[in-house]
């Protein structure tokens, strides 16, 4: 075997089966809604029917009197708020003075059966003074808009505003001289875009079981919560924050997670279940009905964009400008910041300005959704990029390449680009089977879009314990999302130089693992992998020292390679032989690595879409779809492909089908999987993947985050394909048949 054929890794890069695979195909895996404890009762949450109303009074006495009811709780059961952020979190748990969206929780009941709990909740009498509601982001910014929070003042560079406003904050990125940049341009394009609120759409609803130990008074007992979440520690911290408990007394046990995509970074049911369980003095389970998932849990922002770009005749971007207006829902915190990061992210913009507005509206408080804020911003920017390329007569990939950033280039949103593989991705797209294949036939077109996405590092913990037979237990606090315990264990196996079947990974809880941030931001395989590698290196160091002691040789003389410790010509232990020795004397070997990874590699992705547009019905059919992405080093290529295909399909749903529909009262009209349509197997073709590997130097094996980038480019790629097919530039998401028929002039808006 010559050097070129030699694989750099023994385990990393292999298409290994998942450790949890068998349990996932037999129904044995325990998800949130599957948890049951002895003596458990059931909780139900009463929610507001109004989008905006003052609570005049609330009477729970009839609910409490219903036989089989064990507890009723409201905002009055929560400790008082200590800051604005605390009050927002508290009020989003149970409304106190006002309800701010349909589905806003106002009370909860625990009862012997789910049916009794629901019946009792309906007996709670809440008197509302209904107020005008606003769900549209621009309408919420008007002077005559109903104000959600009387004490909210716009926070901007100039400080705080002097009158109540729904604009929570305004930020600005400025680079160079945009006016001069546009004056230098030969071609200028400018458009406004509107995108709907969308939901993460995980198939598993939220579910929580809470139980208290009764040592002493119930209030100083210990709380255990079984919940479906992306972060056991984030749930713990949220519960501690809202219930004022010692961190040590709250144990959060994460279950298997049935899809999350950012939507399970946020805790919804844990505090209500804990309050009910304390009052009822028995375990309480709450499972959220599907309509409530749409109404009351974290969608992603609906948004409006005003974007302008200019370029010279030779294909250089001279200036770019964008205004981003993001609906945050009931409380501030939209992903407008990361939307601004994505906006012109891949390109060198010599002169530019981005203004971002975080605006509260009468909808559920938004939560993260896979590359938060990026997808609609990319749709707007990549439409204009495509239009510039067209006006300049350049191939759309070539135009992007001419303007692409390289390491060290200054970003419009501040800072500089790190080690990136965006150019390699575009070049791979240019030569891939899809882009080089002809597309023929009427009403058909091909479009591309390209994105940068920042990714994340953060805090992770991984423990390894060596058993007497040479097997190794790996415990991580990072909740497993779609197979991350496998990709973490594969990195541990690589570092330990052991076959992967010798490693047994599992996900621990907050009592028995070190701190970890949420499994989000495409960080888990990357950052928790680094923790696993560090723990493995420490295990090997300890094992070498133990071998040296057993052999009575200097530790420097003990070498380790491919599962064998050796010193000199004749001293030799396999990993298992040494493991047996060390467990028998001097204590066993184990290590825990806690890391806070401060650097990480950005991800780049180019998508290619072929569509056919029916000019009579406006229906868009996807004929072919390809995802090209730099993943640094694919730890498990099959799982990487799955992330690319799944992310792209969510982006396709965002592009063509998905969106919250509200009436004038602010009520959501489509809170179910029939009317809120996510893609089915019939709506997408097989999705081709091109994995590009530009190793990220700060990770021992070159890994970059993978999960988020592929959701970003689909709307832009599809919109640009629609333009080539039908000659119209969609400017709304979702790009429904009605929107296309309006653009085609077939129907009026």
């Amino acid at each position: 075997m010559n050097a070129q054929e030699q694989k750099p890794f023994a385990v990393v890069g292999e298409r290994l089966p998942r450790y949890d695979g068998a349990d996932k195909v037999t129904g044995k895996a325990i998800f949130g809604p599957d948890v049951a404890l002895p003596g458990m009762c059931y909780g139900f949450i009463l929610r507001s029917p109004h989008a905006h109303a003052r609570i005049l009074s609330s009477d729970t006495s009839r609910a409490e009197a219903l036989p089989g009811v064990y507890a009723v709780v409201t905002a009055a059961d929560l400790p008082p708020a200590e800051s604005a952020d605390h009050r927002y979190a508290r009020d989003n748990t149970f409304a106190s003075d006002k309800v701010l969206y349909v589905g806003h929780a106002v009370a909860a009941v625990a009862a012997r059966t789910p049916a009794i709990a629901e019946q009792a909740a309906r007996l709670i009498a809440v008197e509302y003074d209904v107020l005008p509601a606003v769900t549209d982001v621009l309408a919420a910014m008007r002077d005559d808009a109903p104000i959600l929070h009387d004490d909210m003042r716009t926070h901007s560079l100039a400080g705080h505003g002097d009158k109540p406003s729904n604009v929570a904050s305004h930020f600005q990125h400025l680079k160079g001289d945009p006016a001069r940049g546009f004056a230098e341009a030969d071609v200028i394009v400018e458009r406004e875009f509107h995108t709907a609120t969308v939901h993460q759409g995980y198939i598993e609803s939220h579910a929580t079981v809470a139980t208290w130990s009764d040592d002493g008074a119930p209030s100083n007992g210990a709380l255990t919560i079984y919940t479906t979440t992306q972060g056991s520690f984030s749930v713990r911290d949220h519960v501690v924050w809202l219930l004022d408990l010692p961190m040590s007394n709250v144990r959060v046990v994460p279950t298997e997670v049935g899809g999350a995509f950012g939507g399970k970074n946020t805790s919804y049911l844990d505090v209500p279940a804990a309050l009910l369980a304390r009052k009822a003095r028995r375990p309480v389970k709450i499972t959220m009905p599907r309509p409530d998932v749409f109404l009351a849990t974290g969608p992603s922002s609906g948004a409006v964009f005003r974007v302008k770009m200019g370029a010279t005749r030779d294909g250089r971007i001279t200036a770019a400008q964008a205004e981003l207006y993001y609906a945050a829902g009931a409380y501030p915190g939209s992903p407008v910041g990361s939307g601004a990061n994505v906006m012109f992210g891949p390109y060198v913009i010599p002169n530019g300005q981005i203004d971002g507005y975080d605006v509260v509206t009468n909808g559920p408080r938004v939560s993260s959704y896979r590359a938060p804020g990026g997808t609609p911003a990319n749709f707007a920017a990549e439409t204009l990029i495509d239009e510039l390329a067209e006006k300049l007569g350049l191939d759309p990939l070539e135009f992007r390449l001419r303007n692409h950033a390289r390491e060290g280039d200054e970003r419009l949103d501040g800072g500089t680009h790190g080690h990136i593989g965006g150019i390699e991705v575009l070049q791979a797209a240019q030569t891939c089977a899809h882009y080089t294949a002809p597309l023929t036939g009427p009403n058909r077109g091909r479009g591309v879009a390209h994105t940068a996405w920042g990714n994340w590092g953060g805090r992770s913990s991984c423990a390894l314990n060596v058993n007497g037979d040479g097997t190794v237990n790996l415990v991580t606090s990072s909740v497993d999302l779609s197979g991350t315990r496998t990709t973490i264990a594969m990195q541990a196996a690589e570092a330990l130089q052991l076959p992967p079947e010798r490693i047994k990974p599992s996900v621990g809880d907050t009592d028995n693992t070190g701190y970890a941030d949420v499994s989000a931001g495409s960080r888990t395989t990357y950052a928790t992998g680094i923790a696993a590698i560090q723990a493995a290196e420490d295990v090997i160091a300890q094992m070498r020292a133990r071998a040296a002691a057993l052999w009575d040789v200097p530790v420097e003389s003990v070498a380790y390679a491919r599962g064998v410790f050796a010193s000199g010509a004749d001293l030799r232990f396999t990993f298992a032989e040494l493991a047996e020795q060390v467990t028998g004397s001097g204590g066993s070997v184990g290590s825990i690595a806690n890391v806070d990874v401060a650097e990480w590699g950005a991800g780049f992705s180019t998508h290619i879409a072929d569509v056919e547009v029916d000019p009579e019905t406006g229906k868009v059919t996807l004929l072919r779809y390809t995802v090209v992405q730099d993943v640094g080093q694919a730890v498990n290529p099959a799982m990487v492909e799955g992330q690319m295909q799944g992310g792209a399909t969510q982006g396709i749903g965002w592009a063509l089908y998905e969106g919250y529909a509200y009436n004038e009262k602010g009520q959501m009209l489509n809170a179910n999987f029939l009317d809120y349509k996510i893609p089915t197997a019939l709506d997408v073709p097989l999705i081709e993947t091109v994995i590009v590997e530009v190793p990220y130097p700060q990770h021992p094996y070159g890994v970059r985050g993978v999960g988020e980038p592929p959701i970003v480019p689909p709307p832009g790629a599809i919109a640009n394909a629609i333009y080539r097919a039908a000659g119209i530039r969609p400017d709304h998401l979702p790009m429904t048949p009605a929107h296309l028929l309006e653009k085609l002039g077939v129907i009026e808006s």
Partner: protein
Amino acid sequence: MTNKTLVSATVNNEPVEFLCEPQQSLLECLRDILGLTGTKEGCNDGNCGACSVLLDGQLVNSCLVLGVEIEGRAITTVEGLADWRGLHPIQQAFLEADGFQCGFCTPGILIATKALLDRKPNPTEADIRAWLSGNLCRCTGYDKIVRAVQVAACHLNNTCEVDA
């Protein structure tokens, strides 16, 4: 308090008897009374397919069937696919082809796949997509699911190409 009805049925080839309230769905009976939590609730209104089971060999959403309706009838859930010999070839195929990510919709998709392959041993890609269009998956983009069904079909038909 509602009166409960005694229901006798066959679940995964075993006789079962259980007491069920008249409004309880088959999904609730399977999960909450019989402890068969492999069958999942995604929407409880027949739109996601996570609760798919076979009722006398027919693919149904168990959230849309009442528990009392299965009197004297036979149900197959995901727990009934594997037996003492090991995993069912469909389960094996989904493992081999990485036909799942989070695994939550998987039980329903496995059951729907069984119903398809029982009727149509050699489905085309279009057949598979049409048949599975009632089973929502938010993770995979369906690509590896469609391929897993194709692998399952060749396993069951003994037409898989053997590795050289």
